[in-house]
């Protein structure tokens, strides 16, 4: 088997508490290997440390113990080259046009002007934003703005894309369609994708494998294989095994979700 694209070993994150209160044990220990090119989703109850896990892989935060490595190199304190991150909130820069938002990272990286123009044009076309190149984010809908953020990440040609509840602020229909879009991009770019979500159906529809996390401190309880073909779309929500997968996720998660809302003892 090929070496893992991302690998986490005994990763723990503890937030030190100011003022002598108890430190918060947010995550871990977690062991996880992401395979090259797979679509991996992580679901878990709210507050279970899903986003913390993403921060650790993105290099936005450092693990308290254990190691996180990407393509065989340990991640420490900085976002490594080749990793793209899409956040849940609207991260568009409101003072830049759509095209300038997308080109921002390339310009920061000092890419030649011609290449910036070409790659930005490609990303605009890929995300169906061509007509909005000169619009400002304020003129776009929430779904369109999230496409800008995705385009802005993909234009950097990341080998690993981390998505932190990217569709959390969108309505259900838009989410399904954005899911289709994400699947298409995943197939076309060949990148490894890690999607953090609280939506079981989203995870079941999109991912090859789904990691289920426990209530805080978050650990991996189970990894569910969906066995979907690589060519797939939101139509699989009508597939009988879609319900089966969602059901299996919920069976594991129900108890944990109860714990996370402080009702664990009631069953």
């Amino acid at each position: 088997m090929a070496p893992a694209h991302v690998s986490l070993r005994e990763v723990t994150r503890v937030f030190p508490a100011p003022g002598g209160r108890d430190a918060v044990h947010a995550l871990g220990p977690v062991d996880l290997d992401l395979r090259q090119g797979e679509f991996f989703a992580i679901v878990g109850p709210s507050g279970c440390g899903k986003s913390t896990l993403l921060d650790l892989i993105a290099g936005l935060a450092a693990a308290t113990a254990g190691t996180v490595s990407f393509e065989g190199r340990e991640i420490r304190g900085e976002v490594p080259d080749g990793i793209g991150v899409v956040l849940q909130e609207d991260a568009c820069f409101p003072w830049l046009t759509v095209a300038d938002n997308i080109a921002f990272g390339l310009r920061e990286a000092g890419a030649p002007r011609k290449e910036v123009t070409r790659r930005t044009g490609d990303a605009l076309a890929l995300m169906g934003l061509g007509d909005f190149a000169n619009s400002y984010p304020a003129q776009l809908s929430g779904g369109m703005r999230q496409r800008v953020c995705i385009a802005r990440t993909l234009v950097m040609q990341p080998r690993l894309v981390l998505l932190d509840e990217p569709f959390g602020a969108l309505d259900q229909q838009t989410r399904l369609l954005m899911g289709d879009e994400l699947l298409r991009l995943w197939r076309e770019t060949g990148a490894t994708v890690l999607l953090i979500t609280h939506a079981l159906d989203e995870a079941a529809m999109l991912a090859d494998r789904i990691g289920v996390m426990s209530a805080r401190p978050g650990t991996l309880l189970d990894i569910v294989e969906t066995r979907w073909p690589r060519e797939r779309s939101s139509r699989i929500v009508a597939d009988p095994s879609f319900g089966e997968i969602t059901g299996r996720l919920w069976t594991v998660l129900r108890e944990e979700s109860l714990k996370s809302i402080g009702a664990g003892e009631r069953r």
Partner: protein
Amino acid sequence: MTRQARYRIAVIVGALVLLEVLCRIGTIDRLTMPPPSRIALDLWVMLRSGSMAGAMLKTLTNVAIAFIAAVLSGVALGVFLHGLRAVRETLDPLFATYYAIPVFAFYPLLIILFGLGDTPQIVIGYMLAVVAVIVNTLNGLDRVTPVLLRTARIYRMGPVKTALKVTLPCAAPHLLTGVKLALAYAFIGIVGAEFLMSQTGMGFEISFAYNNFDNAVMYPLIVLIIALATAINMTLTHLEKALLRRRGYQ
């Protein structure tokens, strides 16, 4: 033009016409104030003769120096203080009460420190302007959402680049408010200081004309200062509106 804008112009024109009539029929006597049409004529003559060109240049140069120094250092200090929570929390109440202090009261001290040249006047203009810039810079930086800061980290930007390319552009509408206030305060500071401690400049010329009952110079100069300050302020307001419209505000 909006209906409000038309009304606004009507109010100003109406006031001018009223003043003109009151001056013409003698309700306002000539030694107090010449009619507006006469002031306009005097202004035209004054501008054509170039007699005030030196005073205007001197005042506008000093306003520009105080203004630019206040904007540059105010933004830099704002960014710096925003990063130092403890210092900022110590200074915040002082900023809040700063404009309760009449800066002009310091003018004897400033003359002792900086002599009789332009420097104390520029310092007064600067002192009045800089705090408005600092306060509005802090205000704007406070409103930068955490997600944009995370985005800057994802792009591996250091603190200076983050400030220049993310947080300051994001805070631009608030910065512009500070810039507008800085300009107004720089004008007030410089012209006021010229009244008190200068032998040149538009403020001095107004006060000199006043002491000599020279209404043909005093009123045109007052009108000129109002016109200059209003024109610059309107330009900045225009810029501000364009900036806000782009971000989806009306």
